[in-house]
């Protein structure tokens, strides 16, 4: 009985693993994409390299966790996290970035302040909650649906659905609403927007608030599966900024698409390299882009 049986089974198994990895890549890619477009929104408009965005991302998860542990309905907790993060974003712009701007701070100074804010947010979270991983107390999250041999958890399906909706929402918002158009006007020329009474400084507050609200979505959804950690925001943000740069600064779709591509490459690399080196893969992609196409794939003409 030494037929071709085992070989076929082996082939089938690797095939299934490959498919599972591709789907996992799509899920993390969508979540990452929302981080990337929210960061890109801030960066393209305010020109601030908003490192503290990683902190806002982490805050979202902890707020949802706190509410869910106190028996608040899950959906309400998600909405609350989005609102709190939006408020936090507005405060950051109003109290920190706008002030630095008024004092004529250089780019480097703003960047260092942003890094300081990230350290503050992370360590407040570590002090109030704990530096260890927290799991969400939701029984439905780990329930799985099997589709053609591929198993997906409810949270994974939810993540993809919400994140793609968020992406579509941002694209629609930027092109078809007055505020969206105003934001794009300020992004393309702050000086001109200023003299035509578009009030760039008010727009900046809106932009950081909106971006912080959006980043709360993956900030809540990703930890549903992987758990929460106070210092867990840096790697996603770094990957997202790489996706933004590779996609071309100013291109929302570019950032979202490249996030998925990078997440797919990371997942596929698991076939050859252990997972703890995935930061190396991400960084390798960045270096390749820096060497061959520093303006990104879909960069607007500037």
């Amino acid at each position: 009985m030494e037929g071709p049986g085992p070989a076929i089974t082996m082939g089938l198994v690797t095939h299934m693993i490959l498919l599972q990895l591709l789907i996992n890549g799509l899920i993390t890619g969508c979540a990452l994409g929302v981080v990337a477009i929210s960061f890109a929104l801030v960066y393209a408009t305010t020109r601030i390299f908003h490192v503290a965005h990683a902190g806002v991302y982490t805050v979202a998860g902890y707020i949802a966790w706190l509410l869910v542990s106190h028996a608040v309905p899950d959906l309400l907790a998600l909405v609350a996290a989005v609102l709190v993060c939006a408020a936090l974003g507005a405060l950051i712009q109003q109290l920190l970035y706008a002030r630095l701007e008024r004092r004529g701070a250089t780019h480097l100074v703003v960047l260092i302040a942003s890094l300081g804010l990230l350290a503050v947010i992370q360590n407040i979270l570590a002090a109030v909650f704990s530096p260890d991983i927290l799991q969400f107390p939701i029984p439905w999250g780990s329930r799985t649906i099997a589709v053609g041999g591929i198993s997906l958890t409810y949270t994974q399906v939810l993540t993809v659905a919400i994140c793609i909706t968020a992406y579509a929402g941002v694209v629609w918002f930027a092109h078809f609403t007055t505020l969206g158009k105003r934001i794009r006007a300020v992004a393309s020329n702050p000086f001109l927007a200023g003299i035509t009474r578009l009030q760039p400084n008010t727009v900046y507050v809106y932009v950081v608030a909106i971006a912080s609200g959006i980043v709360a979505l993956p900030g809540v959804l990703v930890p549903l599966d992987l758990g929460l950690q106070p210092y867990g925001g840096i790697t996603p943000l770094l990957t997202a900024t790489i996706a933004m740069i590779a996609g071309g600064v100013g291109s929302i779709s570019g950032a979202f698409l490249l996030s998925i591509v990078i997440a797919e490459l990371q997942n596929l690399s698991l076939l050859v390299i252990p997972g703890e080196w995935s930061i190396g893969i991400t960084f390798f992609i960045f270096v390749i882009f820096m060497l061959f196409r520093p303006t990104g794939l879909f960069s607007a003409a500037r």
Partner: protein
Amino acid sequence: MDFLLSYLALASIYVMLGLSTNLLVGIVGIFSVSQAAVFGVGAYIVAHFLMAADPMPFLPALAIAILCCISLNILITLPSLRVSGDYFVVTSFGIQLLATAVFTNWTAGTGGASGMPGIPPPDLFGVQLQSTLQLTLLCVAGMVLTCLCFWLIMRAPFGRMLRAIREDERAVAAAGKSVLRAKVSAAALAGAFAAVAGGLYATFLSFIDPSSFDLDASILLLTMVVVGGARTLAGSIVGPFLVLALPQILTLLDIPTSFAATARQLIYGLLLIAFMLFRPQGLLGERL
């Protein structure tokens, strides 16, 4: 007494690291959160050669570490010279996270998360240094040498050119100076300082693990430079001595040890924000 000596030794090591960070952040004007990674590479290389089956004397091991760190720092800094400053933020974070991954996961070379214990004390020209006093004196001597080096370079024509680049890069280029070469040289010097600090750190503590060289350590270095003040020698000396004294003050307050690391990092973050808002030039520095 031993407590004071070890404070002095560690502060000396951090002064070298402060100068290294200052060269990049203050003088070349690029944001760097990866100097702790270079520091770690220096420490691990020296530790590796001192603990090899056929141990090497301290100074040759340090020389190898210096060469490696110079090349590494040039390699890290080069992208910032090719692309705009913001992209270098990504490079810098990326290098730091990558270095932490290597220190933690490459168990064969670095001992992994549990680190490398039992690094022998250094020797100088065949004389084995043993007591804490001798080791401290070595660290202080290292600090004095690097400070002297920094001071001499900054008052030389090369140092003036570095300052000019920070003010107006195009003007320097228009004057026929090679901006690229100047920046690469500054990065190389920063790498050498970090390597010396790494070698002294590994031999002074006789134990290293990845937690001394992670992103938090880089933020600590940045805090030291920011508190002391960018671009001046005095700033880079005052910053480390003050910031390193902070944890000692924290131990006077009754904070549980599990919370101490978090409290420290929280204070560093607050210091970064406060100084950027109210005194970007630090205590004894120049405008950043």
